[in-house]
């Protein structure tokens, strides 16, 4: 079948398909992108927003009510019971964690693979990650039953001087999911800082200016900032990539370390990760297709983006299909009657319908995307993405419930039927998700403004052949009385002009000068002679410290402080410590990357003299600025003014003392 599809596609040999298509359509500029994205936040909410928000909060209230009922009554109000001790709760947990994975894939892994189209969807997907992880965390939290004792999970001895079991996959989950939530939030926040600065500069009310001012930490788009910023961002991407794999791997360990047929199988880790990305991309499409229509940013998130996402959906769907097939084959090949029964029972037993929903939604449905023409129809893709969401929820249900409901002894067989509380909490979790999402699109730009700007052709400092000519007849900004001039600030029309001006300034002997731009300009740090960021060694030291702390700490607890045999594992076994050691390493490194970046940049900072210039409000919009000042001994106001004017600088103004 696939062969036929492929030939069908081949027939028209169009050389134009080899041309790189632009990632965005239309002719966006820096200013138009700022305007388009910020307007969504700044304008009053659309008519549909309030009703949607009300419905979401109602669902959230339902979820809260069900949780309250459960906590005050007991976990028995759910339908789960022996032998099905895990059902909707863990299904929903894995479902939501999985959805989160696409956000990190888009923000981190696609960044490492230089898939620049990700720039216009990563903010959206990262927000989805954080909210999905919040929904996921809800279920294990409720499932512990006595929620006031949840602090027993923390790595400290509890009220009875008992330590948590570091060899338990459930504790690894606590570390993995909380690390993931923390690092994703850091990553998201780091991405938001420059965009908050843009909103700050555009703010019309003091409250907005003040709040966005606090959130942007005094960001001013300096080339020195961007240098550390880009290094930190890359390091975070490098850290998040193994992190995202580890999270669903650890989730899969919840099942695969057991001895239950259907749960214990070695392919679970990569299979769960692929499934997570698959489901996450399904959810990104589900949210993105209506959003881009409602907010009219089809020029930034184009049909081409949808095409790519459909291809990822198809690829990951097939990896999941591979895992389904290998499980079946190996169950037969193992010659183990329990394994064989489990899989036959999945397909033909009491839950056969769940199994076939899963297979048809996850493996068969995405195959439609072999047809290029179907990858171009937003609402068709939307429909498929819904099916993927359904299929992936059922995948977790099938794995969890069908493996449990037939125990080893037929006398212990059972059948799980959900109660209204199960349903209320499942549906209510969507309420939490959409409440957070709808709030997010009101307060933060849902498209990364500065990263989208780097996709513009003019973002390349070599794009402009001829420098913009110097302006004639601008008034002399220097004081006529010959008083002291602490520094000068000039605005440039383009990244190319700023780049050329920086080269000139460097050649004239300036070292401490600074350049400001609304996005990082490739190669500017070299043109300015800035050298490399000092961040990587800091992150390495932090990572190694985290690893040693976790390893030594847990070994000490397991062998000296609280030696306890669990599951026949030796006291000093290293293997079961690896998941937590890994998570702590990543957590420490990520904090070092973010805090180190802000520290190296001297942020947060309340005030800077460039902010006093009205013209500098354009610095995070479409303005490019050069600052020369007396920190360089070669600074001479007259000469500096000449250099700025000659290199195309305009709106030159005199800076105050620090």
């Amino acid at each position, binding site marked *: 079948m*696939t*062969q036929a599809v*492929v*030939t069908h*596609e*081949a027939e028209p*040999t169009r*050389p134009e*398909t*080899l041309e790189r298509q632009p990632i965005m359509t239309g002719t966006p500029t820096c200013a138009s992108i700022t305007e388009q994205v910020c307007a969504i936040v700044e304008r009053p909410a659309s008519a549909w927003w309030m009703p949607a928000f009300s419905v979401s909060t109602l669902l959230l209230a339902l979820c809260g009510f069900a949780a309250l009922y459960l906590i005050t009554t007991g976990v028995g109000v759910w339908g789960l019971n022996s032998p099905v001790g895990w059902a909707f709760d863990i299904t929903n947990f894995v479902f939501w964690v999985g959805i989160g994975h696409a956000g990190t894939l888009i923000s981190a892994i696609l960044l*490492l693979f*230089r898939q620049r189209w990700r720039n216009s969807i990563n903010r959206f997907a990262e927000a989805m990650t954080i909210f999905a992880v919040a929904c996921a965390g809800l279920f294990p939290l409720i499932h512990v039953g006595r929620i006031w004792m949840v602090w027993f999970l923390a790595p400290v001895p509890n009220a009875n001087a008992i330590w948590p079991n570091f060899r338990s996959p459930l504790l690894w989950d606590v570390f993995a999911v909380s690390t993931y939530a923390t690092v994703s939030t850091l990553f998201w926040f780091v991405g938001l800082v420059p965009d908050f600065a843009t909103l700050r500069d555009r703010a019309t009310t003091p409250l907005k200016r003040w709040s966005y001012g606090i959130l942007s930490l005094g960001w001013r788009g300096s080339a020195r900032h961007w240098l550390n910023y*880009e290094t930190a961002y890359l390091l975070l991407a490098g850290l998040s990539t*193994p992190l995202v*794999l580890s999270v669903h*791997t650890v989730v899969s*360990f919840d099942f*695969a*370390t*057991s*001895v239950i047929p259907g749960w*214990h*199988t*070695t*392919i*679970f*880790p*990569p299979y769960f990760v692929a499934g997570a990305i698959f489901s996450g991309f399904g959810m990104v499409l589900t949210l993105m297709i209506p959003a881009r229509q409602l907010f009219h940013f089809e020029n930034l998130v184009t049909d081409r983006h949808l095409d790519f996402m459909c291809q990822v959906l198809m690829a990951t769907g*097939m990896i999941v299909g*591979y*895992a389904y097939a*290998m*499980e079946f084959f*190996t169950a037969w*090949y*193992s*010659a*183990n009657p329990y394994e064989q029964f489990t899989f036959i029972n999945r397909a033909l037993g009491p839950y056969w319908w769940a199994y076939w929903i899963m297979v048809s939604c996850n493996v068969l449905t995405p195959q439609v995307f072999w047809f290029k023409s179907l990858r171009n129809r937003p609402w068709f893709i939307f429909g498929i993405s819904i099916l993927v969401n359904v299929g992936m929820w059922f995948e977790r249900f099938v794995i969890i419930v069908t493996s449990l409901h037939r125990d080893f002894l037929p006398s212990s067989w059972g059948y799980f039927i959900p109660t209204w509380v199960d349903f209320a909490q499942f549906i209510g979790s969507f309420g939490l998700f959409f409440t957070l999402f709808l709030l997010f699109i009101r307060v933060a730009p849902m498209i990364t403004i500065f990263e989208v700007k780097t996709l513009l052709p003019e973002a390349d400092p*070599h794009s402009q052949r001829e420098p913009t000519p110097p302006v004639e007849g601008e008034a002399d900004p220097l004081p006529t009385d010959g008083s002291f001039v602490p520094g000068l600030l000039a605005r440039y029309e383009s990244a190319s002009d700023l780049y050329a001006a920086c080269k000139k300034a460097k050649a004239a002997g300036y070292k401490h000068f600074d350049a400001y731009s609304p996005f990082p300009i*490739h190669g500017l740090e070299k043109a300015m002679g800035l050298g490399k960021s000092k961040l*990587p060694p800091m992150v390495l030291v932090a990572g190694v410290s985290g690893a040693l702390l976790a390893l030594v700490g847990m070994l000490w607890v397991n062998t000296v402080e609280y030696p306890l045999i669990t*599951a*026949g*594992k030796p006291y000093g076994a290293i*293997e*079961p410590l*690896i998941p937590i050691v890994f998570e702590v390493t990543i957590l420490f490194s990520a904090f070092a990357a973010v805090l180190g970046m802000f520290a190296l940049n001297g942020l947060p900072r309340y005030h800077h003299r460039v902010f006093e210039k009205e013209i500098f409000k354009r610095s995070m919009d479409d303005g490019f600025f050069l600052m020369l000042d007396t920190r360089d001994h070669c600074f001479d106001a007259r000469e500096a003014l000449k250099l700025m004017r000659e290199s195309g600088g305009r709106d030159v103004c005199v800076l105050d003392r620090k």
Partner: protein
Amino acid sequence: MSKTDTVSDVNVRLDPAHVARARVILGGVFLGAAALSAIGWLFWAQSFYVSYLIGFLFALSIALGALFWVLIHHLVDAAWSVVVRRPMEFLTASLPYVGIFFMPIVFGMGWIFPWAGAEVDVATHFVPEKRAFLNTPFFLLRAVFYFVVWAYLARRAIAPSWRQDESGDVGETLSLRRIAPVGLILLGVTSTFASIDWIMSLEPDWFSTIFGVYFWSGAIVASLSMITLMVLCLRQIPKYHAIVTEEHLHDLGKLLFGFVVFWAYIAFSQYFLIWYANIPEETVWYIRRTEGPWGLIAVAVGIGNFVVPFCLLLRRDAKRSVWILGFSAAWLLGFHWLDLYWQIEPVYRPEGPVFSLLDIVNVVLFLSAGAWMTLGVADGRSLVPKQDPRLQESLAFENV
């Protein structure tokens, strides 16, 4: 500033005289190794067959990995890797001939595969129940199927690229892009079952669902190491040196680093889940390979394939350094062999590894044969896909 201006001459070939001389030497080495191998077969048949199988899988994984790299390059429409694609294609070109090298394994089936021997039902527990899969005719049929698929895919994945050198037809790129997804699916399925047939079934009672992925992850690292080494050697040619810059090496280094981590992830997942669940029918495989003298080899496999290359390649400068990158690639090739040795040899020598000259002879045999074929393919061909529509982009490539 723009590098495209400086690299105008992409017409690079190997010197035919050098190739001819090298091929004569390689042919001699191959014949010598074959003769030694044949002596080994006469006197120590069991040792011969096992070391031959390891050598075969070592070479095969490099060729299959190369096919993977070619296909993935076209699938994702990569640009940076155009200038380093030829080494991948040269390695892939030997795939149609691997079937010939499988012949000795067919003859030695009774020696190699416990389930194909005479006293099998006594020696193992579950083989009778697996007879539908583990039987000689079906095994051979599957092998033939794999070889046919690989030969077909190799052809489809490289022939258009050769033709494009002459014609410059972008339609060839489109045809490569069409075969890529189908090819990767076929490659994934066939190599999974090949690894089950040729490695996992050596212990017919044992099973692991991730085994196919474990095999690929090693194959992908090994072939990328070989490709990197080939690129570094070709950079001795000044023209090629100007085309393939540090930027391209940096990317090869990044991929190598990434897949080293991927291998570790898969290897750890398999080990860890079996270790943790502690079910005897599964742990037996690891107990045989982690206790006694084999335990030292197990540690060496882990450190050699993960810890050392991870530390070596972590830094940015290391990935751009010819010496560190080259050393890591050569090191990884060696430890990929050790990984295969550690998976296969304990079946026959449970008491511990024994140094055998035949192991080395068989590696030399396959490497010389592979090099001989690869040079034969490379001879007279451009070392850069000179008419590829993404070539300019690849030449101008710079890491951000």
